[in-house]
């Protein structure tokens, strides 16, 4: 299953499912990454982690480990 972690910089993907539970998952959803949302990977931090996303018109940063919890499909 392709996750947000695998999406290349500059690509946009659509969220299929959020795995995980509790605080991290709720936080990710609260920030607007919900089922069906289009997410663009903007860049990777200079040291390789975390990554920067564009979601619902703003910039959001999450760690790669958390990005791996988000199943996506190509737009």
């Amino acid at each position, binding site marked *: 299953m392709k996750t947000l972690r695998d999406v290349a910089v500059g690509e946009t993907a659509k969220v299929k499912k959020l795995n995980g539970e*509790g605080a991290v998952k709720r*936080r990710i959803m*609260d920030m607007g990454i919900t089922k069906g949302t289009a997410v663009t990977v903007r*860049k990777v*931090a*200079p040291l390789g*982690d975390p990554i920067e996303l564009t979601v619902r*018109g703003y*910039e959001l*940063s999450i760690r790669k480990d958390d990005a791996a919890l988000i199943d996506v499909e190509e737009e």
Partner: protein
Amino acid sequence: MSTSEKKIVIALAGNPNCGKTTLFNSLTGGTEYVGNWPGVTVEKKDGPFKKHDGVVIQDLPGIYSLSPYSKEEVVARNYLVEQSPDVILNIVDGTNLERNLYLTTQLMELGLPMVVAVNMADVLKKAGDVVDVKKLSQELHCPVVEISALKEEGSLAAAELALELAKSGKTGELPHVYKGSVEHAVAHIEESIEDKVPAHHLRWFAIKLFERDSVAQKRLSLPGDVMAHIEQHVADCEKELDDDAESIITNQRYAYIATVVGMAVKKKARKGNLTTSDKIDRVVTNRWLALPIFAAIIWIMYYVSVTTVGTWLTDWANDGLFGDGWFLAWTSGEKGGREAWDEASGAFAEAKARIAAFQEAYSEAAGAPAEAAEAEKGEDAPAFVVADEALAATITRTFRLEDEESGEVTNYPEALQDLMSEKGVDSFSREELLAFVAENGEAAGVKLAEGKDGPALETIPGESKEAESFPLAGFVADYGSYQEALEVEEPEPSDYGVWVPGIPVLAEKAFAAMGIPEDGIAHGIVFDAIIGGVGTVLGFVPQILIVFLFLAFLEDCGYMARIAFIMDRIFRRFGLSGKSFIPIMVGMGCGVPAIMATRTIEQERDRRMTIMLTTYLPCGAKAAIIAMFVPAFFGGSAWAATAMYFLGIAVIVFGGIALKKTRPFLGDPAPFVMELPAYHWPSLRGVLIHTWERTKAYMVKAGTLIFAASVVLWFLMSFNWRLSMVGLEESILHDIGVCFAWIFAPLGFGRWEGAVASVTALIAKEQATATLAMLAEPVAAVGGTLAHVRALFGEFSPAYPVLAALSFMIMNLFDPPCIVAIMTTFREIGGARWGWFAVLFQILVGYCLALVTYQLGKWVVYGASFGAGTAAAIVVVVLALFFIVRPAPKGAAK
């Protein structure tokens, strides 16, 4: 208006970075009360509405949601549900409506009157975007207005509207957020709890129960059958929609918002894809440029706040305001400006040296101290009178340093003596001396300079020491030059500019005028305790102000979030956050602003850990300890000094790793899901208010506690048990030192001097050097301070003085910081229990490091026999390794 009337409360709610603070400041005029919410370290602010009496603006923490997972969110929702403010003023960022309205959909379920203020109207206008406020108002069923908090456009009107709404108490009908089966299930839940919650909170509790929100479940503590009934509805819904309850609610909220935004917002088609903010971000977080730019920004911040401006201001505060006094900048008097002053005061210092030299030579020649003629002493004249003119005329003591026969070591500047005695040199020819000074440079403590009578040796000014000049060619201390020197008048500062006397000078004058004795208790309390102690605290203020100014700027412009973005990878490895970087760096200057700077870290756990670890990089005052011990015991080696900084880094890294696995810090890693706000130029007003709030908090809270602590310490240092004033050697503190000296025995300095120096180091770390210098003086007859200290440690540990010194230095560098920093820790870490935890941890680290250094050093390096101390040190090492290496225990935390 009567005071008994209940005040109307307007609660400000909104996302972080939505302009809430700016709005709050402009509504209250910045006269707010800042504190913490009860029991937690989340900032609580409220202030009176400046336009209306009896109206309070309550600022809520900036939050994205009302979930039960973050402390800020729980604080906000508890307040909204339990306290029920009269109206909510919800600020939303118009440039980011979708995510901002997500909180709005939750707030409106609380059933309180609410006004939505769409902020950043100016930015929207500039971008050509249009928000249809009327349409938005229709959809959300509550009044919506456009404002620009930064430009103060519409802010007041929005608050007035909220006030009106509060008075009428009108609440809007709930919009239809949820679809089909979800609405159905929620309606059922509402039915079953109708009689158990206030009517206006019905929807709120129903939704929370649908989400299986633990906080709400606990609050209502419904009977089992009702819970089962609710659970049935939720489970059915989950099954139908193939998702969990929390996700269902979140999804439907966002879906609802998408339709509302679609109807109410018309975005102008962007020409290029990049806004200015995007362009800036492309550069500053660029893969290759990010780190150099980051380093440059940090360097500038460090350079300005710690090395240059910060130091100037701190020096001004300590030597000027709380010292002799200072010149008003850019002023000059009839005799010239600052340069002329420096020259004149230099000449006066030299004249004083000549006078002292002559008097010493004369006294020796006369065979008795010449101070005998005390009676003839005038008001300001030195206690010295030349009784025998003939004898005086024969005196020619020159500071001919090339005079090998005399071997007069006392003629060398004291600073140089230390190095000379260390290298086993008694005297020099002039050439040797020049070579010696040139070769040893700064370490010699003197440098070659141009004096009044040709080349001179000048001492390098250090901590609270003025430069002294020693002419090389030898000033001839004869009677003629002595009389000449007596003529040199002390320069009057007011001739060289506008001179403002320092507080101690003024206080001294006032005391003299009132006739209060200088050795009395009142004098001691005012000068040593109040001016000394509180002056030290206030002396930090200018530097703190600058650090906070930078922090406020970095935060408000949006770069702070990028720092976390850039540094997160490194710091999360040892349990800290990317934002911990700034405090740790500021800590190299001073631990107090460093601890205050942790306020930018939202995650409580990260913040606490950063507070505990940030003071381990030696600060400016600890550098003074290094500056004494490294030349005294390690030949001034730069490696020894650098090693202390690396040891500090190691303590932070391994301390973090070990702490992360301890019970208080255990649990899921804090989610790092962080908004990277658009860059914008911060408003001056906002930055200044931000800076001032934090500085004020420091001055008020730390100032009062420090004052008390200073008075207590001063008392212990100046009194004996019979409560009469004595010197340090007979004081209560001395006796305490004797009692506790055994504690330090395993560290190699188990004598009262070591204990007392370590205790006084708590006042300010550099105090340890002053105390040691004072206590070491009687120990050795010859040499300078460094030689005395060497002798003292020779008595502490005859076989291993160098190890004992290293152990003392390490203990004082890595035990709890000074009392100001400890007090700040207690205030910032959130509760006395945490404060004690931090201090105990720091004591443990300092003591254990010193123990290991001394005991293992003795055993491994010097081949001492294995003893109980060695065993203890090995146990400490093994335990430390265990705490660092052990896997994180599972399930121990909540």
